């Protein structure tokens, strides 16, 4: 069998392979190093940053649901300044593409962070989270209103030379409309999907389990929703898509490629199996090789061809 070319081009950056890790599930890149060598990954997406440090929500922040996980971390992060001082010098040395993820409560928040994060920071791209469901006004409004979405993407695009990946919320009626909006705003790529808003109630306490009442649902439970959204968006816009939502096995990843994703991201799947990225990468390669594909890129959107 011929070797399969796994090199992936997205938003003007070259990744050694299409397997990334999801923001908020992979810390600042080193936490999983003892389980999965960083240089085996196509890239890492860092925990969501805000301009100011945040302690996040109270515990409990997590609750397991059928084949899923509800989280309400509430964007706990060290803040921009501390990130630049203590984290960036380390993450820029990681032997993989590092994508920073930014969240904000106002347009100015996003602009402030984008301005501070440029190509010379050593980052590969900026993922703009306009979809965090776990904080009040946590960018969710940017993620559900197409006009605001276009505006915020346009604003960050104008102040940084890094490629912009818009991370969309699935908590909308029409995902295609949102994708079109951020394309107009100048996004270079899309990340689909963030978590679905959910909740869980404790029958003994007769109270919500999460301190925050609501949380974002991730894991295998949301995969069909994510695949559907990737399918719809890939038909409607020209931007490359990083597909995510419930990927735990290579078969899941292949499904996302077939639906139209150019790369995939693993989030909750790392918690289940910290070597999932390695196994998934191997599985993708074998799948392509068996079918005589020279490049993983040949898989992208294949299910659309009638």
């Amino acid at each position: 069998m011929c070797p399969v070319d796994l090199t992936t081009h997205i938003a003007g950056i070259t990744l050694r392979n299409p397997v990334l890790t999801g923001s908020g599930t992979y810390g600042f890149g080193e936490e999983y190093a003892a389980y999965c060598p960083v240089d085996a990954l196509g890239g890492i997406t860092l925990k969501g940053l805000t301009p100011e440090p945040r302690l996040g929500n109270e515990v409990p922040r997590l609750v397991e649901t059928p084949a899923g996980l509800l989280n309400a971390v509430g964007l706990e992060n060290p803040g921009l300044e501390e990130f630049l001082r203590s984290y960036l010098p380390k993450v820029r040395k990681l032997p993989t593409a590092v994508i920073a993820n930014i969240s904000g409560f106002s347009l100015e928040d996003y602009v402030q962070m984008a301005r501070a994060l440029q190509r010379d920071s050593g980052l590969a791209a900026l993922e703009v989270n306009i979809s965090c469901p776990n904080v009040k006004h946590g960018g969710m409004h940017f993620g559900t209103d197409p006009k605001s979405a276009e505006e915020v993407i346009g604003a960050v695009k104008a102040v940084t030379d890094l490629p912009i990946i818009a991370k969309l919320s699935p908590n909308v009626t029409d995902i295609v409309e949102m994708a079109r909006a951020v394309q107009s705003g100048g996004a270079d790529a899309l990340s689909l999907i963030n978590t679905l808003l959910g909740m869980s109630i404790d029958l003994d306490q007769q109270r919500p389990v999460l301190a925050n009442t609501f949380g974002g649902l991730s894991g295998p439970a949301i995969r069909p929703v994510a695949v559907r959204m990737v399918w719809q968006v890939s038909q409607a816009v020209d931007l490359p898509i990083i597909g995510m939502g419930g990927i735990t096995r290579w078969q899941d990843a292949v499904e996302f490629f077939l639906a139209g994703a150019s790369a995939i991201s693993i989030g909750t799947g790392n918690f289940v199996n910290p070597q999932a990225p390695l196994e998934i990468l191997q599985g993708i390669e074998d799948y392509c090789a068996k079918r005589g594909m020279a490049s993983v890129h040949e898989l992208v959107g294949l299910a659309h061809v009638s």
Partner: protein
Amino acid sequence: MGVCALFEHRTSIIEPRIREGAGEMLTEGLVVVHECLGEKEQRLRRLVIKGPIAKTAKPGQFVAVQVQDSSISSFDPLLRRPISLAQISPDQDEITLLYRIQGRGTEILARACCGERLSIMGPLGQGFSVPKEGELWLIAGGIGIFPLYALAQDALARGLTVRLFWGGEHQRFLESAGLLQWQALGIPLHLSTLDGSFGLKGLVTEQVEEQLSLLFGQTKQEQPLSGGSIRIATCGPKKMMQAVTELGRNFGVPVEVSLEERMGCAVGACLGCVCTLRDEAGTLIHKKVCQDGPVFRGEEVVWDVSC
């Protein structure tokens, strides 16, 4: 420009893939013993696993065990379950986990048979510190006793003086949860039960206070007393650990507590498991129970916030 060049360089690295050395923290442990611990009604289990973890593990650390039924692959339950190391036997390459069947995950775990392999992450977190000399007091509430056994063995092997304070619901619980093994260690045991069926009736902390007072005089001093060479390690309900921390402060005895929180990644990557501490400047900060703990200094823990 420099950055672009760097990226080209990075992408040209030859694919490493699954390599030697990577993943030593993730192992397929062989189940060598899995049995009921004590009487059936207590729903306690003893699970002995063969694997390399024992070589590096320290008392107070834990593992994250996959609880999926190995015969049918499924993602429900999804997450691993954190369980403390109750015994570490590097010579046999064995670790012992003692656990209570609590919900669906531990129920499924309880079905694992001898000869099966379980996917285990660990050893995880920061364990108890073992002082070089002096006296170690172990204070346990309920199944908080489990991680303290490994600590007792370690401390005794290092020649420390150890005593145990342990409170449980009733005699049947204490007997089921390993009383005999503790008695076999030949250390002083201060036992209490809520119903008075064994040891003293009441809370374990009452006995701790009594012993501390005997040694150092009355409590509630303006000036904390100097607890000399005594150290305390405690595990159990939060309220109990808080009370022990308070006693430690009054008598000048350093206390280490082992906290519990719901976990996602168990390696410090998801921020699901934070606890609130007060740093030296008095500022409230979050630490990760999985990575920075589960053992913390009692006096740094902020007990009265739920986060």
